[in-house]
């Protein structure tokens, strides 16, 4: 077979050269007789034939370029554009380029050289001026392999096909039996009931017409569109009804319920879940145009059920969904638009109120006046509620940011020539508006990167046994006081060795250093790091990942990366929920106070005397059989003074890692307004901000992620 194909390819090359020769001659003739329709027709045919044959051999480069030329020629043929000297010259150049493309194929798959590619770009640009509106890239549509299912489903739950063919079907050379045979390749035909009701008396019967109706019980895993495609050629004048098995009905209803709530028309909902084919919808809509006897028009749902295209239950679910979507739309209309500045001002004031409240509380406790204490505690509860309420005002779901990427993924995948699906989950996860605004750009970069470098080309994917269509996932969820955003692709994963090599070249890694896979992967976030072999216009210029990281760190967030060779890469961004106010846990070392974000505190334990002795040699603790690395704040911040009589350990957790902070005193929960540190302190490790206590003293807010990381490293070394 492959020898035959090779021969056929040789035939193609010879034929294409011949056609191109003819094309050249015809074009030259055209210069003197520009209106000659026959010559124009011949030129068009040449391009058309080359494209058709090239498509059969999968020569996409030839198809793509020739398609545009053919397009222009088609417009010349139907006199949409006039032949003039410039156009003939351009077409001659195009012909030369096509010859070059064919030569490349003749020379066994060498790539076009740079200069030729440049010429092609230039030609494409010039051709654009002559192209119609519908011009685009050649759609080399490869239908997905039809899945034939030998797999048996349980029970009598099958598809039901109700077929009334066009009576003329036999005259058109189509035999119903052949369709049933083909249907048999998609699944198992359980039974066919033939309905002779429409048969006229013998003397009136025309032997060339098909009077029979068929009811088919069909068992298959194929979807409705695939089954409907069997009857593509006989759709006209035939009545083809395909009812899904009952289990499918439940599946459709589930699908409808999980659809995002945007207002869609009933038909579109049903088509989008695959319960209805486009043709059935068009038929239904056409039927709707004919008013009923009393002059009213029937609702579409009723018509669709009437023509047996969908089940009543499915329509019902879709209608419910629709009204739900409308309701939520109505809710949207009840929104009050507020200027963001006003909101920020409010948050600031609430912050001050929190501090002032804490001050009043402290005074009340010292005064020993029980009624004053009661009053302040009521007040502080209310302040807390106001704080939560004010912060919620600024919380917006991340869904809007995510859904912007639908378009991006669609456009970029076209640009790259890859077929990529975007799956969004956790769209309802809320986070602070200021964070949402700033996360857009880094996300955009990561998404483009994943599409360009992460997901492989269709051929590579198929070779690796993966579906040709790539999947990109965006997911968001709340995790211990922070929000995690994941961008994952099912691509080839990172090339560990190449990154390590590059890291060595760039001096980011010392030759004798041993790194975990995790650390190697994270090298790509270093400045000026790019392993892409070719720079595309999407990514791979080596700027980017480090900028992404910097942007995220500026939001007090972190970014890390997981990758499995051949299976894909997941990048996880963690961000604080809000930038303004947190619940804190106050601890004291000597005379200073520190605040740990309460969400990260797991528990507190007292450090026993023997453990304190042991700490001198090692910096970890046996916490119920688990190794807990310790960070003594006293040494970390180089606080002078003698050791306190008693010490405590605050167990904190971040991103699944635990560490123990050794402090003197535990001072309890405390609402904290985060005041950023000045630029001067931006290099300080382990501190993320400051706050003012009720007494007017300043307390530092600990940067738990960096402390945990430090403990982690200390433990390893």
């Amino acid at each position, binding site marked *: 077979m492959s020898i035959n194909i090779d021969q056929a390819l040789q035939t193609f090359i010879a034929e294409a050269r011949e056609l191109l020769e003819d094309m050249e001659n015809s074009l030259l003739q055209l210069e003197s007789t520009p209106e000659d329709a026959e010559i124009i027709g011949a030129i068009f045919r040449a391009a058309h034939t080359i494209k*058709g*044959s090239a*498509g059969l051999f999968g020569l996409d480069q030839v198809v793509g370029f020739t398609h545009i030329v053919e397009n222009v020629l088609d417009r010349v043929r139907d006199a949409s554009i006039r032949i003039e000297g410039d156009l003939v010259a351009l077409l001659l150049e195009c012909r030369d380029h096509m010859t070059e493309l064919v030569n490349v194929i003749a020379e066994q798959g060498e790539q076009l050289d740079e200069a030729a590619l440049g010429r092609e770009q230039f030609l494409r640009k010039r051709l654009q001026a002559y192209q119609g509106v519908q011009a685009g890239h050649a759609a080399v549509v490869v239908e997905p392999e039809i899945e034939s299912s030998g797999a048996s489903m349980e029970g009598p739950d099958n598809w039901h096909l109700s077929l009334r063919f066009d009576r003329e079907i036999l005259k058109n050379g189509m035999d119903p039996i052949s369709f049933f045979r083909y249907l048999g390749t998609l699944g198992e035909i359980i039974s066919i009931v033939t309905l002779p009701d429409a048969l006229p008396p013998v003397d009136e019967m025309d032997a060339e017409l098909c009077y029979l109706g068929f009811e088919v019980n069909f068992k298959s895993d194929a979807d409705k569109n695939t089954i409907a495609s069997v009857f593509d050629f006989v759709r*006209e004048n035939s009545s083809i009804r395909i009812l899904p098995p009952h289990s499918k009905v439940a599946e459709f209803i589930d699908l409808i319920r999980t659809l995002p709530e945007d207002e869609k028309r009933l038909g579109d909902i049903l088509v989008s879940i695959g319960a209805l084919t486009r043709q059935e919808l068009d038929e239904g809509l056409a039927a709707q145009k004919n008013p009923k006897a009393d002059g009213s028009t029937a609702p579409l749902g009723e018509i669709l059920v009437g023509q047996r295209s969908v089940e009543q239950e499915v329509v019902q679910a879709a209608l419910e969904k629709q009204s739900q979507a409308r309701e939520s739309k109505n809710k949207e209309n009840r929104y009050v638009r507020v200027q963001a500045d006003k909101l920020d001002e409010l948050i600031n004031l609430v912050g001050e109120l929190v501090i002032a409240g804490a001050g009043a509380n402290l005074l009340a406790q010292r005064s020993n006046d029980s009624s004053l204490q009661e009053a302040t505690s009521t007040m502080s509860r209310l302040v807390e509620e106001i704080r939560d309420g004010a912060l919620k005002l600024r919380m917006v779901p991340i869904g809007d940011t995510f859904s912007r990427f639908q378009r991006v993924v669609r456009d970029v995948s076209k640009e790259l020539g890859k077929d990529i699906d975007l799956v969004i989950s956790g769209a309802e996860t809320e986070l602070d508006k200021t964070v949402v605004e700033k996360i857009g750009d880094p996300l955009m970069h990561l998404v483009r990167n994943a599409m360009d470098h992460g997901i492989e080309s269709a051929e590579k994917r198929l070779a690796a046994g993966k579906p040709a269509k790539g999947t990109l996932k965006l997911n968001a969820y709340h995790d211990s006081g922070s929000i995690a955003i994941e961008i994952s692709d099912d691509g080839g994963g990172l090339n560990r060795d190449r990154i390590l090599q590059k890291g060595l070249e760039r001096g980011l890694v010392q030759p004798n250093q041993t790194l975990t896979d995790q650390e190697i992967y994270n090298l790509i976030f270093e400045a000026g790091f790019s392993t892409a072999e070719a720079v595309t216009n999407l990514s791979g210029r080596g700027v980017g990942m480090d900028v992404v990281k910097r942007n995220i760190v500026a939001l007090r967030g972190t970014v890390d990366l997981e990758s499995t060779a051949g299976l894909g890469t997941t990048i996880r961004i963690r961000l604080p929920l809000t930038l303004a106010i947190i619940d804190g846990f106050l601890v004291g070392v000597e005379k200073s106070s520190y605040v740990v974000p309460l969400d990260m505190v797991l528990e507190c334990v007292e450090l026993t005397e023997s453990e304190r002795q042991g700490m001198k040699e090692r910096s970890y603790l046996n916490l119920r059989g688990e190794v807990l690395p310790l960070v003594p704040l006293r040494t970390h911040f180089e606080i002078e003074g003698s050791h306190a009589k008693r010490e405590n350990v605050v167990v904190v957790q971040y991103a699944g890692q635990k560490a123990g902070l050794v402090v003197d005193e535990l001072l309890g929960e405390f609402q904290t307004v985060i005041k950023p540190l000045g630029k001067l302190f931006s290099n300080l490790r382990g501190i993320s901000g400051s706050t003012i206590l009720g007494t007017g003293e300043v307390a530092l807010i600990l940067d738990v992620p960096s402390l945990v990381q430090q403990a982690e490293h200390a433990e390893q070394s």
Partner: protein
Amino acid sequence: MAKTILVVDDSASLRQVVSIALKGAGYDVIEACDGKDALSKLNGAKIHLIISDVNMPNMDGITFVKEAKKLPNYKFTPIIMLTTESQEGKKAEGQAAGAKAWVVKPFQPAQMLAAVSKLIMP
């Protein structure tokens, strides 16, 4: 006995690849390079299905289909037209002439096989 398919296209390479695919699936194939050639090949052999291009020199696909439909032996023979996405009008013309099935160029051999097997089995 294997069913016979007539493939009409002015591109020899297209005919060759389609032939290889169809023969591989168990059909017999006769080739013709244009409408006139195809009409002459209809006499004599028993052909079960015709695959024809639209744009061809000498006699184009639409005329060929109309002529073929006039022949008593080929009144009921299924015909697949090869159209391109830019030729929606041609598709309608072909259907009016009696070619109810179509495959859009450029196509992969597997797509052609699927279309053929909807109409006849080898």
